[in-house]
């Protein structure tokens, strides 16, 4: 058991625990806070995988933007009664069995693969090589230039669609 493994196990446990709390919390705002903690855990596992850029983007996009957007939406749709409601469907036992089945089937499939037990060693990349290769590939016409432009269109659609849906023309000006 090396120290890296211990660090990984701690982050994984924290992440899994907070993910459980996201699903299990009664208050929505608490769910959102647990969600942020699990995003942080995922970011640190990205860092352990030496994908620094994505660890930071995880912080920037998920915690800095998506989590805040979710919290804003929670505040916009908050209801006085929310905490008294039954938060989970009554048939959750069935779903639990289904989910455990899916999980064990996944594990079974993984374990038949020969590379499953590979030890991941440090890559020894501390400079910009990864990001540079990534940057070049998304702009190379024989690389990923098309997905790159398509994602811009996706974002455009999300922006216009989101704003169009969220803005309500009839009730303008009813600010609290």
């Amino acid at each position, binding site marked *: 058991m090396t*120290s890296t493994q211990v660090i990984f196990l701690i982050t994984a446990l924290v992440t899994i625990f907070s993910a459980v709390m996201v699903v299990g919390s009664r208050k929505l705002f608490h769910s959102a806070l647990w969600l942020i903690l699990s995003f942080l855990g995922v970011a640190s596992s990205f860092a352990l995988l030496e994908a*620094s850029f994505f660890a930071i983007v995880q912080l920037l996009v998920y*915690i800095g933007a998506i989590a805040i957007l979710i919290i804003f939406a929670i505040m916009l749709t908050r209801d006085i009664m929310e905490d008294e409601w039954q938060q989970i469907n009554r048939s959750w036992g069935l779903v639990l069995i289904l989910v455990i089945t899916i999980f064990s089937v996944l594990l079974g499939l993984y374990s038949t693969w020969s590379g499953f037990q590979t030890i991941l060693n440090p890559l020894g990349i501390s400079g910009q090589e990864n990001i540079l290769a990534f940057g070049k590939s998304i702009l190379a016409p024989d690389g990923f230039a098309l997905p790159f432009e398509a994602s811009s269109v996706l974002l455009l659609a999300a922006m216009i669609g989101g704003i169009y849906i969220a803005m309500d023309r009839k009730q303008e000006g009813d600010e609290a």
Partner: protein
Amino acid sequence: MGFLNFLFDPISSISTWLSSLLAGWGLSNEIITPILYLIGAGVLGTGALLVTLLLIWAERKIIGRVQDRFGPNRVGPWGIFQSVADMVKIFIKEHIIPSHVDPIPYHLAPILAVSAVLLSLAVVPLSKTTVGTNLNVGLLFIIAVGGLGELAILMAGWGSNNKYAIIAAFRATAQLISYELPMVITLIIPVLLTGSMGMVDLVEAQKIPFILAAPLAALIFFIASIAENGRAPFDLAEAESELVAGFNTEYSGLKFGMFYVADFLRAFTSSIIFVSIFLGGWQGPWAVQIPILGFVYLLIKSVIVWFVGVWIRGSLPRFRIDQMVDINWKILTPVSLILVLLTAFIDKGLGLSSIYLRYIVLFLLNIGVGALVIQLIVKQVKKTEVQVDVGSRERLVARPENMITIHHQE
């Protein structure tokens, strides 16, 4: 010679000495590194918090002079121990915890607020040889940890269980995320010029500071970082003279003090960051040979930038919320996006090899875009300006539409 080396570069000398000392005790490398890191982080964090005491005093003094007051002048010479006295007082004040607070967010928020400010120091190179850590995505790291500060504000607002606190928290967060956008976008320009996101590479690439290649970008970044600090003229979220107190209404004692510390410290760290990105950081004459000199340069530059920030705080009146929103979304963000595009296109299109020519072209480009923007703003203001006949008996009511502002054309 050894002594001279120590004098020129004390921090790395100490760390070399410490690591050899620990190795002498038979510790393996795997333990020495974390211990050194722990000591380094501890010294940096404690030092920053202690410097805050000085910063608070200096800022109060400067603001006092700007507003034609004395500022603190009773405790010690020039009142220099005023913030020490304040600290002692705030330490022994009662922590009033209002009923029905949401305990975890309420208690965690002040801690997180300070932590978010301190963390950005971890990647800033303090001299040629001294840097917390040379993370290869340091620049983005600095922006990302700023997001933790927004989180602290939201948690404080929610946890307090107070209508005003939560409204203020939402206002503050909306302002912070809005102004984070021009920061994120303008910082692409230094990365374009360097080809690296590491802070060490970024500073070392600035034999000529980037502010000469991108003055407009630096200006936008500076304005955005003032707004990120939530200080005048962008202090709508805790307009001291208008609202209750902002998101920290329900905090008292040292918990409030932590928000206060975070506020004053952030003013300084953001100027350190500005200096590192646009003004060459520790670069200066003989800074390579004598690293300690680089640290001095960094401090001098940062203090100057910080002073400009305080000066602005003392001089400018507060913006209204619609002006604050307009400045960001209708000026800073579009201008910074267009500036990035133009910089990338013109620099690549001309393909100049001489660094001086490149800088001159980019400088002219920035000035040109800046002049154009100012012209547009002036035109827009003229269009919406309301002519007031001072002699007439009718007076305009102080309403947003009657003021000189940049209005959206419906």
